[in-house]
């Protein structure tokens, strides 16, 4: 053991105490902000606000709680999850693997389960690199993550569209591919094209899809609360975060929104809006820039949902949020799924179990590659650093 835990424990203790007391200080201000929220004034503020944060846009208002609708007598849930073996830069073989876990669970008169995992190896030039003639981007790391997301949604859509309704599709994580915002145009097109095709196929088949985010770290609604307490509008100025923040340094200014605690939407809906198990928040529209590339009907909206174990974020396409029956079906199905697996959708849990590539399996593939190369007289020389980690000595 090389980490001296004792050396950092004292500082961690101090940090924990400080964080707790600071959060506590902002609590009453947050409760007051929610209590005094004037939605007409807020809409006015949001129209002209210039902020550096994502602001949740209300569709049916910022406040309000919807109880869990009655459980459907029967429904089918389709969930997919993927796991990857990244390209190994120490190996002369260039490839990656996507292992997709697929789960179909049908409830009602004839309960059924279909569970399978499918591994696919990608090794062709077009699988390994993206190119726009002038640049070549290797498909690994973050970029491979986009491919995995595409494959997960494509597989789920293909399957779900062939099943008898009512069917819901669940995905683990966000449906907003915001990570593409920092990518070159040809990478965006490569990833977004098939992703949007799968979303459109689901819309055409009228199969509602949801991205389920457990323990979400987003603050879109909390950011709106910050706008609501901003002291610029009473002084006749629009909310302008850049301007306000610049004055911190030049004038020692203290932003009005600093009275609010630095908490996420999850905490806001759990402790201030006080969602109870089964309840959901109103549906909001995300202001993420990448959504401008989505067709209007498929732009992602979201709501927060108390699963019984936590407040999770659920992302849905706009067309689902406009259809009350679809929204209710999804809401009820997710709650039912969560009740079957201690607060996390059962279908997603099982899809993950089917997809996950364990350390010993990764090692098994490495050994297989070594052996196959050895059969052709190629003895794999790993990097010195890699060798030093594998054969540890004193």
């Amino acid at each position: 053991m090389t980490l001296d835990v004792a050396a950092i424990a004292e500082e961690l203790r101090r940090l924990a105490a400080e964080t707790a007391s600071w959060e506590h200080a902002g609590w009453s201000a947050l409760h007051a902000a929610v209590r005094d929220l004037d939605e007409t004034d807020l809409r006015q503020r949001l129209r002209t606000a210039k902020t550096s944060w994502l602001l949740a846009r209300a569709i049916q208002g910022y406040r309000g709680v919807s109880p869990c609708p009655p459980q459907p007598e029967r429904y089918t849930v389709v969930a997919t999850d993927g796991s990857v073996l990244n390209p190994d830069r120490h190996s002369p073989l260039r490839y990656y693997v996507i292992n997709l876990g697929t789960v179909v669970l049908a409830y009602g008169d004839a309960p059924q389960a279909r569970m399978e995992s499918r591994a696919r190896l990608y090794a062709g030039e077009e699988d390994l690199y993206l190119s726009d003639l002038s640049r070549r981007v290797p498909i690994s790391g973050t970029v491979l993550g986009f491919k995995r997301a595409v494959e997960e949604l494509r597989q789920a859509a293909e399957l779900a569209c062939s099943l008898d309704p009512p069917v819901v599709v669940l995905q683990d994580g966000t449906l907003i591919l915001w990570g593409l915002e920092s990518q070159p145009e040809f990478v965006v097109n490569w990833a977004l094209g098939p992703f949007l095709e799968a979303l459109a196929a689901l819309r055409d088949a009228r199969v509602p899809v949801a991205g389920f985010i457990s323990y979400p770290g987003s603050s879109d609604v909390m950011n709106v609360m910050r706008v609501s307490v901003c002291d610029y509008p009473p002084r006749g100025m629009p909310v302008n975060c850049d301007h306000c923040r610049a004055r911190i340094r030049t004038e020692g200014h203290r932003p009005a929104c600093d009275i609010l605690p630095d908490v996420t939407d999850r905490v806001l809906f759990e402790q201030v809006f006080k969602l109870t198990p089964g309840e959901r928040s109103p549906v909001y529209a995300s202001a993420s820039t990448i959504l401008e590339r989505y067709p209007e009907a498929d732009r992602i909206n979201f709501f927060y949902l108390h699963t019984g174990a936590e407040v999770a974020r659920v992302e849905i396409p706009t067309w689902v949020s406009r259809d009350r029956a679809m929204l209710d079906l999804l809401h009820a199905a997710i709650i039912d799924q969560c009740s079957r697996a201690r607060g996390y959708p059962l279908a997603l849990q099982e899809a993950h179990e089917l997809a996950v590539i364990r350390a010993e399996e990764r090692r098994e593939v490495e050994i297989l590659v070594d052996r196959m190369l050895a059969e052709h007289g190629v003895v794999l020389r790993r990097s010195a650093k890699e060798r030093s980690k594998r054969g540890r000595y004193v």
Partner: protein
Amino acid sequence: MSEQPESLRLGEVIETSTVGFVAECDELHCLPPLGSLARVNGPEGDVIYAVVTYGETGSIDPGRRVVRRGSADLRDQAIYQQNPELRHVLRSVFSAAAIAYRRDDRLSYLLPPLPPPLHYSVERVPTTEAREVTDQPRYFPILAQYRGEIPADQLLAAHARHLYELRGHDRDWLERAARELARIFKHDYDRLVPLLEALDPDLA
């Protein structure tokens, strides 16, 4: 044989050794009874006969614990109805101890020369064949030396009772079995008496 091969299959060998094997059942909970006879048809025409020594049902993934699914209103078979994924994440496995093998139509009450291959089918032994294999309880010493999950005496008692039923309450066979046990345990009265009592249908 009147029974179809499909109806005989119990599952598949997932662990194997000279002394026996572990098999995973094709269907959840469809375990063969303790002490019953199972067989594996080997690649060279050998048939290995084994006695079921243990059964269990649990999570397929050893890292995942089984948790309660029911309540006062949802119990037993209804739990499986309501949770269709259970048959994919749970499995039933059983162990069996090899007692004999058949090669070139000759039955030997010895451990097989080779263990049954992994992934080969494990089958129930049809009644007629089971009667033939067990007709002479000469394999009892192998079971008496069994070291595994359950005591050897429990295994012997379960096997003898199962065979007695299978053989249509064959008193002659039971007598042969009792005599063989008396021979094996002639120096261990404390083990013999409870075993004979367990076998006696009039005491059951």
